[in-house]
């Protein structure tokens, strides 16, 4: 089965996503987000996210099937994000996916959300196969992970990840310090345009030689956030554009430096960006610049496939079906800390 028709469900954080693919062809990608409901809290509230998933479930399923213009009986398999993510949120998608699979008599694949972000790259418009090996830098409000992917099914290695805040979380927290709205990323991007990225030298987390010994490809943004807070509280005159630009520069610098270093050390000539923070203009620009300097091909899927979505889950599911990987058993649990080397639970 080279072109399996797969429906994918994603509910690991605040986006309810249902996507449908045929092999590597995107047929539908419907997303309902509860982001606005979290704004007043300054971050994702798990219980609010889980409630919103259940409310959005029927509508997103229905819209995806309509958009794809398929008969659901024609599906070859159902795929669902089994983790990592918020347990209560994941359970809504997993409960639905299991029942849908039984209802339709189709095999079910519980898949890794983070590997799904890598799988999104197969949905490229030119329809080509995913090119491996690649290093993948996945950056969102919940994750900051650097992966080395030699094979989407059998060889995904976690090179490093954040040891405290996710990069997107740091953007949200710094935005609050600067009295900018949630989510912080786009707003910091907006005000940073008028700022000087070199105005303030904020720390670059885990880049000192002593840190690199144990945390070569790990990230830390908690100290950066505190440094920004201290600066904002103590500086005589605070230029919000300069703070935003300088903070963003620190994040972009560390992320792209470590990602490019990983490519060089492992002799890999591809870097894939994924996750919502891949929308950040400076991170994209600096990644492009540094990749070009080092002869690395930079791939950034369209934004709707970078943020959490069901299409990437469906794409990974379709890849597993095409490779002849057996489906999951029906009794798998959600795993909020599912490791990246478990591609299918």
């Amino acid at each position, binding site marked *: 089965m080279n072109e399996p028709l797969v429906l994918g469900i994603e509910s690991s954080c605040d986006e309810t996503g249902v996507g449908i693919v045929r092999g590597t062809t995107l047929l539908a990608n419907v997303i309902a987000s509860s982001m606005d409901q979290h704004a007043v809290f*300054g971050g994702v509230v798990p219980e609010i996210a*889980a409630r919103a998933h259940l409310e959005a479930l029927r509508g997103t399923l229905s819209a995806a099937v309509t958009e794809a213009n398929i008969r659901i009986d024609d599906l070859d398999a159902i795929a669902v994000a089994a983790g990592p993510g918020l347990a209560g949120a994941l359970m809504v998608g997993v409960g639905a996916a299991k*029942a849908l699979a039984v*209802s339709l008599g189709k095999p079910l694949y519980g898949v890794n959300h983070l590997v799904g972000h890598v799988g999104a790259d197969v949905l490229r418009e030119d329809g080509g196969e995913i090119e491996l090996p690649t290093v993948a830098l996945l950056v969102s409000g919940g994750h900051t992970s650097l992966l080395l992917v030699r094979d989407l099914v059998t060889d995904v290695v976690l090179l490093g990840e954040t040891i405290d805040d996710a990069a997107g979380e740091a953007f949200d927290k710094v935005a609050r310090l600067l009295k900018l709205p949630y989510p912080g990323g786009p707003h910091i991007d907006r005000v940073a345009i008028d700022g000087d990225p070199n105005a303030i030298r904020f720390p670059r987390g885990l880049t000192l030689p002593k840190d690199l010994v144990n945390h070569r490809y790990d990230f830390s943004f908690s100290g950066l956030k505190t440094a920004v807070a201290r600066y904002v509280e103590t500086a005589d005159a605070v230029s919000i554009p300069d703070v935003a630009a300088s903070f963003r520069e620190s994040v972009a610098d560390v992320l792209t430096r470590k990602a490019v270093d990983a490519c060089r050390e492992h002799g890999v000539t591809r870097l894939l960006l994924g996750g919502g923070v891949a929308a950040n203009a400076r991170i994209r620009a600096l990644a492009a610049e540094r990749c070009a300097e080092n002869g690395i091909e930079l791939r950034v899927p369209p934004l709707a496939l970078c943020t959490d979505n069901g299409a990437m889950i469906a794409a990974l599911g379709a890849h597993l079906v095409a490779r002849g990987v057996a489906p999951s058993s029906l009794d798998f*649990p959600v795993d909020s800390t599912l490791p990246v080397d478990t591609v299918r639970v």
Partner: protein
Amino acid sequence: MILAIDTSLGTSVAVVGGDIVTESATLDTRSHAEHIGEFIDRVITDSGLTPADVTTVVVGIGPGPFTGLRVGIAAGVAFAFGQGIPVLGISSHDAVAVGVDACTVVTDVRRRELAWTSYRNGVVVAGPGLTTEATLASDVDLTEFPEVRAGTISAAMLAAAAQQRIDRGDDLSSVAPLYLRAPDATPSNGPKRVSG
């Protein structure tokens, strides 16, 4: 043929219709997402049926601990979507009140709270509401509506309760959970100071 699902306490799934009553259940209150798929598959298969034989899905909409409760409702919605059939929601307490003249159904919703609903002949007369062990007797008229403490909800009884309510002409189209509690979150008061 009704497929009934309740995950407000443990996980209970049943197929009910004609001569068939097949139920699969566990008391485990922390493994709804693990069991739900197998239980649905099992009750249909063990009844000698296929998913296409199910004509209506009924889900218990609580009250109950939220995380597990949502698993059953999500499953019911998705199963019905797959078959293009209706999904109906009724209170999980309705399943306990079936065939009882007057009662107050009481269940544990964690955090040292109890959920209660008072019924006369299967019809809600008060509640659903939240209370505690200490305040149950003062909050609720347990004399006229004696307490029935339920540690499990039977999906087969849920199907029976749903059938009675369908026959009465009740609108059961909402499957929104009976949360009875707002999400546990308070808006931020702004960032904490980090400098002395």
